């Protein structure tokens, strides 16, 4: 798809940042399982976190398409940093922008839009994530305060030094789910230790516990009882964002494997001169390309205000599979080096599988697509 001047320039700026600032250092953070807060703050200065947020709160008021361009360029180099942005923006800050009160937006959005603070969105529980309408975490109103009890797991951005708030889904009555904002440091909120993850190791993922955690009644985000509906609306955009991220990973594998195939020699010639390797690269390019078309198509529909739920599911399903397939093939092209953690494609290999799980598993995407076909 042809990009206009501003889109081209923004993608170029993010690409330059990713290549020059993230690429040289991210491997070490990844190995240590450390969250690169300084890098994320610097990235924030490019306006990446504020792309879709309203201008009056420090954002740029632009669409999902522009955000997708940025996520793709970041993920082309590293998925951990890309998902840090995605998680803070698409479910967290976007939820505040769409459903929050004026007071809530003023209070939280400017720092989130600038990438100075991060937001976490906590839905998944130890008892289940796919069945998102089922929530064991409970919140009851008491003396003008919500009292929250329960546990969440696998929450991105929950425990970074930059985390400004965690928006959690909770049962606020029988069959009634609502979203409530909780700031770090609130008594009764306990943020667990970082998980030992297979991939996305430079992103922050933790369990979160609420034990009689009290927050003001005014911390309710959106209408009481509308939490699940709000979440489903946000999730459509989130899936497009994940599809853009997955496209970046798939493209990053093409970049790395192509360079390697031209340079690495076996039997006296570059391995890329073997048709089996060249064809593998052609297939990889095809997957990255079609993934890009699916996410951009869904984003254009979203930005035009058209229904795009099924398109988002198509994009997320296709691009996440492309990321897995390309990571596998890129690793193959790198041979033994591909199995070494210091090789970027090894990171892609470790990072790709979660793309078929998070933001709705691919089984869920197929359900959404099938349903849109009247099945």
């Amino acid at each position, binding site marked *: 798809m042809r990009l206009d001047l*501003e889109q081209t320039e923004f993608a170029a700026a993010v690409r330059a940042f990713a290549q020059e600032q993230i690429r040289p250092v991210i491997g070490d953070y990844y190995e240590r399982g450390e969250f690169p807060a300084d890098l994320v703050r610097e990235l924030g*200065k490019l*306006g990446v976190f*504020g792309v879709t947020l309203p201008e009056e709160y420090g954002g740029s008021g632009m669409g999902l398409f*522009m955000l997708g361009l940025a996520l793709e360029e970041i993920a082309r180099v590293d998925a951990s940093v890309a998902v840090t942005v995605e998680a803070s923006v698409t479910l967290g800050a976007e939820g505040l922008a769409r459903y929050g009160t004026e007071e809530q937006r003023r209070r939280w959005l400017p720092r989130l839009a600038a990438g100075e603070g991060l937001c976490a969105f906590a839905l998944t529980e130890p008892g289940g994530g796919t069945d998102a309408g089922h929530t064991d975490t409970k919140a009851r109103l008491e003396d003008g305060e919500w009292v929250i009890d329960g546990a969440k797991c696998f929450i991105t951005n929950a425990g970074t030094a930059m985390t400004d708030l965690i928006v959690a889904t909770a049962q606020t009555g029988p069959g009634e789910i609502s979203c409530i904002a909780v700031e770090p440091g609130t008594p009764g909120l306990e943020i667990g230790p970082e998980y030992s993850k297979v991939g996305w190791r430079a992103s922050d993922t933790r369990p979160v516990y609420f034990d009689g955690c009290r927050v003001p009644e005014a911390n309710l985000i959106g209408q009481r009882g509308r939490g699940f509906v709000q979440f489903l609306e946000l999730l459509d955009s989130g899936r497009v964002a994940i599809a853009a991220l997955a496209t970046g990973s798939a493209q990053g594998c093409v970049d790395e494997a192509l360079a390697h195939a031209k340079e690495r020699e076996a039997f006296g010639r570059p391995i890329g001169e073997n048709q089996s390797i060249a064809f593998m690269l052609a297939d990889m390019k095809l997957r990255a390309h079609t993934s890009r078309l699916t996410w951009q198509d869904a984003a254009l529909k979203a930005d035009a205000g058209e229904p795009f739920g099924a398109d988002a599911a198509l994009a997320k399903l296709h691009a996440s599979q492309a990321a897995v397939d390309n990571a596998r093939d890129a690793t193959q092209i790198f041979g033994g080096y591909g199995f070494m953690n210091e090789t970027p494609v090894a990171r892609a290999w470790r990072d790709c599988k979660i793309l078929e799980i998070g933001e709705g598993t691919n089984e869920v995407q197929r359900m959404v697509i099938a349903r849109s076909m009247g099945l």
Partner: protein
Amino acid sequence: MNIVVLVKQVPDSGLARQLDDQLRVDRNGANNVMGELDEYAVEAALQLKEAHGGEVTVLTLGPSQATETVRKTLAMGADKALHIEDDAVGGSDALATSKILAAALGRLEWDLVIAGAESTDSGMGIMPQMLAARTGVPALTGARKIDTDGTAITVEHQRANGYDVLTASLPAIVSVWDTINTPRYPSLKGIMAAKRKPVETLALSDLGVDAAEVGPSGANNEVLSAAERPPRTAGQIVTDEGQGGTALAEFLAAEKFI
């Protein structure tokens, strides 16, 4: 404080670069970017503006595609730009280039001009000095640090093993190395704002510069031939068995270094 930054679009120095059949820098087939050192000049100007107020104007001499570079400087935060574009400029040597730029500087109000220490295509590193001579202001070159109170300017002029401190009164011309700062990336807001910033495009006649004085006809030198740098050859290793010093001296003498 009003600052003019000199910016040149050049072929990406990270990629292979070519000369065309007239032995000029091939700008059409190249991936053109902002001169790598010019980014530091822009950043230095923006930092001074942030500290002292005033306006940053970008001045560039280049073909039409140089607008991309101009837009990048505006997206980084420069306020406006003057772009000199004229087909008669192609083939200009350094002296002619400085004549055009000096004429353009004459149309702008400035307390300070900042440039990269050299352009990364031709790498002559002479433009700041030539412009200083033409405009009658001091040149403080090769800075790794700039300080100013708005009336005087002090720079640390970088040397191989240290630095000199140079001071002059404003107006002045400063050139900078890449040790001076870390250039910012354009932000989305900056990119959107750049659309609305004024860019004036002028031709030689607007500046009162005679086309015959620039370009190939006005050049004081002519490039007769150019060749690729020969590949490195293996050096000669002298094993010191008492005669090492003599062997070194003989080598240097044979190569006319001493």
